Each structure stands twice: as structure tokens, then as C-alpha cells.
């Protein structure tokens, strides 16, 4: 018997409520004329969240379809690709990272390899031109390219 997704969620929310309450309780408040202070509001919220979580536990809804196996792997892979995109965005520059990421995502969405490569390259170059010249946004060019250009 699988535990309903909503029940797991409810336990997570209870944990969150407790965490918020403890964190708020530990805030050190300097003297002020504000009769409420910064603690009360988060405490009220955590109480409310706890009550709602209990209601959810008692009356869980349908569990829905959760990704497993190959799909879960693809989702994790996509997030990893996006994380890598972020990590390399500035050092490698917009053009290179965007082309790579677009090619990978296009391939993940079922494009044939050649289509993915052409589409990804066109997307990267096209969006670079649009943002830089059309909209005047400065995008990272990448630290590797500067020595090549022999720039000052």
C-alpha cells in the first residue's frame, strides 16, 4: 500500500511549519516601539500552515502521476543541464553555453541530431543578435574569448 502523495506532502509541510516556528522564535529582537515585532507574523503563518497540513493529512486528494524510471532520469538530467548552463554562463559566455544547452534540450525533446545542432546554433546566434543589437542588453561574452581577441 502506497502512502498517498498528499500525506507525504502534509508531513513535509508540518516539518516546514515547525522549522519556521523554531527559526522565528530564535530571532533576537532589539527594543522597538512596534508592539508586534518580526516574530509574530511568521509564527501565525506556521500555525496556520500546521493546521492546513493536518487537514490535508486527514483528507488527502488523488495522488496523480509521478515521474519514474526513464522520465525521472530525463527530468534530473534537464535540471543538471540547466544548472550547468548557469555555472558556465558567465565564464564560457552566452553564445557557447546557449548553443550547447539548446542542442541538448532539443535532442531531449526528440529532435533528430542534425536538426538539434542546426536549431541550437541558430537559436543561440539569433537570440544573441536580438538581445545585443535589437534590445541593447549586454550578455556575457565569456572570459576565454578575450585573450583570443587580444583585447586590452
Amino acid at each position, binding site marked *: 500500500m502506497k502512502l498517498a502523495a498528499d500525506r507525504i506532502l502534509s508531513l513535509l509541510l508540518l516539518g516546514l511549519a515547525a522549522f519556521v516556528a523554531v527559526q522565528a522564535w530564535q530571532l533576537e529582537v532589539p527594543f522597538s516601539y512596534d508592539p508586534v515585532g518580526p516574530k509574530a507574523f*511568521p509564527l501565525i503563518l506556521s500555525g496556520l500552515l500546521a493546521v492546513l*497540513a493536518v487537514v490535508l493529512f486527514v483528507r488527502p486528494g488523488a495522488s496523480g502521476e509521478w515521474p519514474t524510471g526513464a522520465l525521472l532520469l530525463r527530468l534530473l538530467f534537464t535540471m543538471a543541464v*540547466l544548472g550547468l548552463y*548557469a555555472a558556465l*554562463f558567465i565564464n564560457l559566455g552566452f553564445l557557447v553555453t546557449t548553443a550547447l544547452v539548446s542542442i541538448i534540450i*532539443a535532442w531531449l525533446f526528440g529532435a533528430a541530431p542534425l536538426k538539434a545542432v542546426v*536549431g541550437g546554433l541558430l537559436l543561440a546566434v539569433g*537570440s544573441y543578435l536580438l538581445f545585443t543589437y535589437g*534590445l541593447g542588453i549586454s550578455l556575457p561574452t565569456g572570459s576565454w574569448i578575450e585573450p583570443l581577441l587580444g583585447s586590452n
Partner: protein
Amino acid sequence: MFDFLIQGFGVALTPLNLGLAFLGALLGTLFGALPGIGPINGIAILMPLAYTLGLPAESALILLAGIYTGSEYGGRMSSILLNVPGDAGAVMTTLDGHPLAKKGLAGPALGLSAVSSFIGATIAIIGLTLFAPLLAIVAVKFGPAEFFGLMIFAFASMSAMMGKDPIKTLIGAVLGVLISTVGVDSGTGVLRFTFDMPELYDGIDFVVMIIGLFAVSEILLMLEHAFRHDQDGEMAPIGRVMVKMSEVLYCKWAILRSSVIGFVIGVLPGTGASVASAVAYTTEKRISDRDNTFGTGDMRGLAAPEAANNASAAGSFVPMLTLGIPGSGTTAILLGALMLYNINPGPMMFREQPVVVGGLIASLYIGNVMLLLLNLPLAGVFARVLQVPRWLLVPSVAILAFVGVYQLHSDLMAIYLMLVIGVFGYLLRKFGFSLAPVVLGFVLGGLMEENLRRALSISGGDVGILFQSNLSIGLWIAAALVVLVPMFAGKLKAKFLPAARPS
């Protein structure tokens, strides 16, 4: 009394603003037409652009509002042609729209929906022009206690009206409010929930939050969708987009009734197009479906939700412009965009920002005409957009999300935070949450706490001040009523609100 409108037309008719209204209408129709990219995503992606392009506040708002109203027009395309709603507000449009297309009437169906959208929006914009100044006069009397009551009312009406699961709506709202408490407490300077990360001292940035929540989670959902159903349904041939006068006249009562319903529901804080179109459709079905033709391609069943969702879009500007309380998830984002410009939404906005308010309302009139002119002859062209393959669409969303956040912050932390929030948004949607309450909570959270604390410091900590004036008592009673009445009329509600895809 209508000085603001005359002044507003002066603002909206400048070449820049006319161009932006047109651009908004065009982009909005495109975004609405693309399955999976509804108004919220469109605005979330373009908001940072509008901001960094250095547009003045009224121009940015005109562009974003154009996208909002435009996407309500565009949402019908995939509903009618593919039976796939472009966003939650277009779910009801599939019920009679797609059967019409299967009968070979796709062209007339697109034409009729454009005309009903136009009429619905026009009636609601007139309503906005008439009611907003009146409400603004009342709103000036609101003190902090009344504002707090009003926000309670907003959350109550949202949980009562939205989605089939009021508990999750409330949990979503509480989570949104909690996220808004991250950062320096403005009252005392105490750091809350920042975990010693300097990036969080200013709180979670609005743009990062919205783009993560909507755009990044959408990428994951689209991947899942592509994995499960390899292909979208076949597209019905469109033919010539035209609508006969007799067809419009046949639907006239459906359109008029639904426009009024849409406007009223739009005005209610917290409820937007998805509720409006559902209520309008079921009402129309009850009133005029004598031969059981609704659901099989009845023109009135198409006209009703289309008139209503456009009317509610315009209606949701009423509470946003007069009270600073958004009428829908999308206006919550527009409100956030205003805050980026340091404009404090609220009852004083009508008086202090006549250029912004008037310009926006005037541009709604102009944009609505543009949308009709764009959508009647060009429906076939927009329908092509539906055929943009996912493998090109998804990387584009990723690029826009990254550039959107990067240009505001030039900071890797913000991008990582966006990705984390994206996973959070994806999980919420998988658990069956709507994201609109989360956004509403996030936008209103700060105001809610501020007003609560201000009220209590006026009274020296006495909670009684929250229930002192007639106005605030009325708001609390109204909040209780919107929650309790549907509970007793539970069966009725189950009919009103069919399962909609959370968005």
C-alpha cells in the same frame, strides 16, 4: 470625473505607447496561442526586458497589459484547433470550440470567439472606467485594519472560488506569504530566514521568483508531456476565418450575460479567467441549453467562456488599480512590475499616478480594437505558431528565463535561486497546486504584515482594532460568507468547477 481617461488617451496615443500596445497585443496572442505558455509565463519572461529597456512605468505597464489581454485572445486557438487549452482560462473553450472545428467550422469558430472576446473585453473595460474611480474614492477611507481585512477577503474568495481543492489553494497562499517574509524585516531591521546568505537579505527577488516558478517549472512539465504523449492531436483545417452577423446575433445573450459574469468575477480579488469562464459556461448551459447541444459544438457554448475570460481580464484591473489588490494571478504579476518602478499600488494610485492609471485604461480600449483587427484576418497565421516544434520552443523559454534574470542581476546566485524555485514550482504543480495563490501570497504577504503591524501599533497591540470600523467588519463577514456559502452549496460548486489543469 473622467479627466483621467482623457489624460490617459493623451498618454496612450503617443507613438511609443501605441507601438507598445500593438507589440503587446501581437506577443500576447502568440504567447497565448503557444500551448503551455499562458499569460503569466509571457509576462514573467518579458517583464525584466521591459524594465531594463528603460521604459517609463506607464509604457511598461501598457506593454505587459497588452500581453495579458492578448493572451486571453490567443488561448482559444489551441483550444479550438487542437483541443489543448493554452492556459487554464481557455479550458472551457475546448468544450464546444473543438467540436465545432471537427465539424469543419474552425474558421467561423475562431471568428466568433474573436468577436465575443472583443465584446466581453469592451463591456468590462467600460465597467472598469466607470467603477474604478468610484472604488478609488471609497478606498481612500481604508486604514491599515481595513486593508488587512481586505486581504483576508481576497484569500478567502480565492480559496472558495479557485480550483477543486480549497485546502491546497490556502496552503499555496500561506507558502507564498512565508516566502515574502524572507529578508530584512522593514520594521526592526532583523534578518529573517536568510540563513546567513547575503543574497537573501533583500528578500527573494520578484522576477527570480516568477520566472523560476512559472518558466522553469514549465520546461519540466513540457518535458514530461512530450515524454508521455509523443504527439499532439492533429490540427483541424481552418478555412476562411469569418463570422456571420446572424451567428453573432444568435449568441448575443450568451455574450452579454457572460461578459457581465466575467467582469464581476474578475473584479473579485483573487479570482481570474479560469473561474470566470467556468461559471459563465455552466450558467449559459443551464439557461439556454434546451436541446442538449452544449458540448457538441454549440456556438453559444463557445461564445460564453470567450466573452467571460476576456471580461474578467479587464475586470481584474479594478481591484489592482484602486486597492492595490490584484484580481488575478496575472494582475498580481503586473502589480509586482509596478513595485519594481517604486510605484506603491493602493488607493492613492488613482490620484498620485494619473498618467499610469489613465494611460493603462486608455490603452486597454486601444489594444482591444487592435486585437480584434489582428485576430480576425490573421488567425490563420497565428495558428501556424501552434506548429512550432517543442524542441525549438523549450530552449527558447530557457534562454529567455536566463537572460531575464541575468540582465537584472548579473549574478549567478540569482540564476541558481531561479532554478531551485523552478523545482519547487514543478513539485507544487505535481501535487495539484495552482501557482496563482502562491504568487498572490508572495505579492500581498509584505503588505499584509505591514498593515497588520501598523494597525496594531496604532492600537497599542489591541487586536480589537481589526474589527472596529463597519468597513472592516463588513470585509470579515464577506470573507466568512464566500467560504461558508459554497460549502453548503457544495454540490452546486462541484458542477461549477470542473477539473482544470493547474497552471
